[in-house]
């Protein structure tokens, strides 16, 4: 029986405006203290929209805190511990903030000195303002959805996978929600809901979404 959706999926891209906030850390203790103090938006910026700014490149430390302690302080131990944090495990940003602080505190309790910047740059805290931009593209079928995902600006994938779920506090990402509620494809929706967007770049995420849709569309639904 053909599936007839009653509402199309409207794609929304986004543009990020970076804003500097008046906090700067020169050592790891200050970093932890300031992470505790800054608005949650700033924690979001340094852990989530990192992906928006690195849409293609992989293999670097996946958040600004890990990147800074490795590149500017040279503390690879803390960098590795911060890099392995999976924000997907912390749907609440406050929980994520606590986890980061707890890792830094634990690291400092085992370190005889407080590692600080000697030759590098201090950590500058930022936050961002996200502007939603409706693209005027609407998908009514899975095939249309798949084809549009292949061509849209990568910020659209960021918006529907990261922003919708984590900052706008929707229960699941927009893609899986629409496939579940409008197309009625529950297994496919579950598969897309459980894709961890933090495992790789936005371009890798785009590829995975396309692959999952293709597997379903070509009848290879056993893999779904």
């Amino acid at each position, binding site marked *: 029986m053909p599936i007839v959706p009653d509402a199309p999926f409207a794609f929304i*891209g986004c*543009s*990020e*405006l*970076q*804003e*500097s906030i*008046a906090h*700067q850390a020169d050592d790891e203790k200050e970093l932890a203290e300031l992470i505790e103090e800054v608005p949650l938006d700033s924690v979001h910026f340094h852990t989530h929209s990192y992906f928006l*700014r*690195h*849409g*293609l*490149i992989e*293999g*670097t430390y996946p958040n600004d805190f890990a990147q800074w302690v490795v*590149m500017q302080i040279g503390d690879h131990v803390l960098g590795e511990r911060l890099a392995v944090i999976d924000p997907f495990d912390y749907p609440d940003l406050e929980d994520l903030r606590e986890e980061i602080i707890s890792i830094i505190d634990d690291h400092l309790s085992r370190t005889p000195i407080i590692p600080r910047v000697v*030759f*590098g*740059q*201090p950590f*500058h805290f*930022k936050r961002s*303002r996200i*502007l939603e*931009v*409706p*693209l*005027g593209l609407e998908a009514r079928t899975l095939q249309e959805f798949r084809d549009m995902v292949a*061509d*849209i*600006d*990568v*910020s*659209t994938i960021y918006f529907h996978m990261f922003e919708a779920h984590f900052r706008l506090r929707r229960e699941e990402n927009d893609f899986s929600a629409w496939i579940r509620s409008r197309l009625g494809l529950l297994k496919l929706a579950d598969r897309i809901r459980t894709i961890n967007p933090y495992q790789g770049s936005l371009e890798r995420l785009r590829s995975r979404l396309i692959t999952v849709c293709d597997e379903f569309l070509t009848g290879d639904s056993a893999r779904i």
Partner: protein
Amino acid sequence: MNSALDEYRDVSPKGTVDFLYRLSDLVKGKSFLHLNAVRYGGGMSEVLRRLVPMMVSLGVEARWEVLAGTQEYFIVVNRMMNALQGRDEKITDDMYHTYSSIIERNAKALKLEADMVMVHDHQPAGLVDYRTNGCWLWRCHLDLAQPQRRAWTFLRRSVLKYDAAIFSLSGFAQRLPIPKFLVYPSIDPLSPKNREMGRSEITQIIDRLGIHRTKPMLLQVARFDRFKDPLGAIQAYRLVKKHHDCQLVLAGSGVMHDPEGEAVLAELRESAGRDSDIHVIQLPPEADLEINALQRSATVVLQKSIKEGFGLTVSEAMWKGKPVVGSTAGGIAAQIVDGVTGYVVHSVEGAGFRMRHLLNNPGLMNRMGAMAREHVRRNFLITRQLCDYLTLLKVLPAS
């Protein structure tokens, strides 16, 4: 369809041009005024020449006005620029008076009304005293990390009257009680400096400059200035030369009427000695095609500066698929993804070590060069800067 923007479809990331059309729907009909001090010369003017027509083609009433100044005024603002970037400069009360009187004269002549007014750098910053409507943004392209106190105090009085300031890097900003946004500068991939070039065109230019086409080329493009550390580049080259039969090209604009530049040039020639593989090339002020050809011919690009603005020559080289070995100065490290698109180094030895490593690994150089081009495509092209400016126009309310 719109030609000014559509030309970028093949060079910008997938979906970007369509995204910009939709973004512009949100700001169509709004007016945007850019104000600066020069129409030609410098990266800012280069980008505005392209950016303003692009904004117009998207339905934004964009204008670009240039301040009219006297010779005396330009001497004053040049001194102010040096002082704001931390150099020793004596600026007298009379000089500040000259600045203020030129600002007043321009305020009467220029039409300053717009929904958004973006004032670039310190030269026209005082015009904010004559603001009428709209949102006023001060766009700072300078490194204000360690300004001379008196010059900054003078400028700060004006900056506080803006609705927000925009810096290229967090580290360039001073403490201010107004919002501070961050917008990276960008390169135009279709400009003469960055457009694609055919092999014969490149060959012709490289031959004319007297450079070997067969030897691996280490290249630094920078003004002949101690802050760019060209002597450090020669030292790093010598560390590489022990293992590779390579050449070093130091290319920069001329040093006419610049005693410091002439002194640096003399030191460089002395340091190069009789090594015919060191090429010190003085280029005319807008030698865009020569720079393009040099960057395309380079094997590894070096940016060994000890003090730098944003350093867009790094992005220019990366756009041409070259791995860049750069220092941590200014915006260099913000452009290089260490170990992925090139290397960030902290010393002459580091520069020599990394260049040697790259010359030993042609496959790695190719991979890094390809990643470098993609990184620039997504982060440092003019289409991204256009996106930032349109977003500002939408997000910031007129005060």
